[in-house]
């Protein structure tokens, strides 16, 4: 096979797979089976297109093949007789080339159903991530395995288990309504943001494959924002991811080391992503903007809007962290607030916020608490106390580079 055809098939698959699987899932009411049928159609394309060329309407071609396979498969399963009739009827309605695949408004609703189903709360977040990348983003199992640094067989098993779990739980192929919607939506958003963070926190060496994850996550987020346009948090998550991703180029130095926000060359920030991200945040705020992703996006926006690090509006950031603490009750967020308060009102004010965290059990072995306190004490000239905090932080961290950095600060205090 020519690599040109292979690349064209990859491109067609990326564009069509979600709509294909979603359209099939609506017909067979089983996303696992729908995905298998779609894969069969892909195999047929890989066999036939190098000879025949890519058809004019490749999406319709794939759908026609998958439906035919679906009829065959279901005919073998006698108990699903009614579905055969349904499939047969749909097939005979559309025997001529099917422009409706691209212009059928239901198809986009189906993609949204697919996202909700792939991210159903009966699945672990890892399983949701794997299914979403496979069925909605159209990645191959090998690609997903590489990005998550696991063996292909491990990832394949995870995907198979997840599909089976959906079938066994009899998860309906639908977009939830009413009170269920908020919970189900946060289950989808959580999976998308996890994909993003896997890419964003990648360390040197594994960078390339994983930076792609940031782009996949942003693409999934934008899809979701377009398909569930009335939900503020979908727009907020897109804004958050885009504003964070705008700094990807600036946040690693020549040796792969992390460059902190205050030291980044802001000329290297991606202005297009910032512009799109800020516009998306506006959209989120128009229809809400009080959720956790919205507050995080607003904090990210404060940094994005500052031409220089010293222009950062720390007073607003500290206040936004206050909102986030009220919403999440998270001591780690409170620690972030302490840092923001120290930037806004000085190290003594920040230190006072951290005092309130000393008895929190969840932070007892969290190295960033003494690390932040050490930093604030050093700024206040209380070097003996700073040293003790840095030494304690060094004891608690499991990262060697970080330990060395903390010990250096301890001996410098």
């Amino acid at each position, binding site marked *: 096979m020519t690599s040109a055809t292979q690349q064209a098939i990859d491109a067609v698959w*990326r564009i069509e797979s979600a709509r294909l699987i979603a359209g099939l899932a609506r017909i067979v009411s089983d996303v696992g089976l729908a995905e298998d049928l779609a894969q069969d159609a892909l195999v047929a394309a890989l066999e036939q297109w190098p000879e025949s060329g890519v058809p004019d309407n*490749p999406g319709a071609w794939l759908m026609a093949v998958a439906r035919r396979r679906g009829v065959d498969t279901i005919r073998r399963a006698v108990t699903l007789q009614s579905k055969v009739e349904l499939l047969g009827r749909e097939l005979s309605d559309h025997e001529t080339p099917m422009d409706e695949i691209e212009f059928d408004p239901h198809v986009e609703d189906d993609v949204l159903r697919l996202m909700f189903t792939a991210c159903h709360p009966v699945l672990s977040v890892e399983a949701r991530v794997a299914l979403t990348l496979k069925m909605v983003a159209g990645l191959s199992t090998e690609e997903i395995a590489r990005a998550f640094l696991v063996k292909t067989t491990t990832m394949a098993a995870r995907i198979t288990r997840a599909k089976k779990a959906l079938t066994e739980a009899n998860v309906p192929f639908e977009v939830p309504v009413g009170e269920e919607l908020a919970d189900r939506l946060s289950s989808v958003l959580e999976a998308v943001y996890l994909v993003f963070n896997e890419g964003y926190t990648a360390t040197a060496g594994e960078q390339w494959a994983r930076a792609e994850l940031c*782009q996949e996550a942003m*693409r999934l987020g934008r899809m979701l924002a377009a398909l569930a346009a009335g939900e503020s948090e979908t727009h907020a998550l897109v804004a958050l991811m885009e504003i964070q991703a705008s700094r990807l180029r600036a946040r690693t130095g*020549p040796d792969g080391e992390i460059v902190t926000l205050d030291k980044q060359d802001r000329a290297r920030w991606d202005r297009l*992503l910032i512009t*799109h991200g800020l516009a998306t945040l506006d959209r989120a705020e128009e229809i809400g903007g009080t959720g956790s992703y919205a507050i995080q996006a607003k904090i990210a926006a404060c940094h994005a809007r500052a031409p220089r690090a010293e222009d950062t509006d720390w007073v607003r950031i500290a206040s936004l962290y206050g909102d986030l603490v009220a919403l999440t009750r998270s001591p780690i967020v409170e620690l972030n607030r302490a840092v923001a308060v120290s930037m806004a009102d000085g190290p003594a004010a920040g230190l006072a916020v951290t005092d309130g965290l000393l008895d929190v059990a969840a932070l007892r072995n969290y190295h960033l608490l003494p690390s932040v306190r050490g930093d604030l004490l050093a700024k206040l000239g209380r070097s003996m106390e700073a040293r003790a905090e840095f030494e304690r932080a060094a004891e608690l961290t499991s990262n060697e580079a970080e330990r060395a950095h903390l010990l250096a600060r301890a001996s410098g205090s």
Partner: protein
Amino acid sequence: MKVMVLGKATERSEAGEFGTAEEFAAMDLFNEQLVEAGVVLAGDGLQPTSKGKRVAFDADGNTTVIDGPFAETKELVAGYAIWEVASMDEAVEWVKRSPLRDSEVELRKILDAEDFDDSFGAEIAAAEQQLRTEPAANQ
């Protein structure tokens, strides 16, 4: 990666015609699909070149401003978009789905880090460093 999509001008676009309602509706539907696929980062149409300007530089940096319209209609740009896609092939597949007729679309990858090899990168970094230090030295 980001791709810049350049919609080339036609006699009609240069005459300032917007196209029929049907053409508009078809293009809207196409754009909607692109947005729903999470591909679009930016995009807009442009006025005809009769309302445009060109600024030409000679070897010494002297400038001449030239008023439109410009010749070679097919080489002119009537609209642009910026898409985030996985590959140039994906961008091509998307363009094929566009309802455009009697027209041409040019696709250009926007340069990113992977387009520069290390030596070039180092050169740019050195040049940037110089730019940053020079004004300070002059003060």
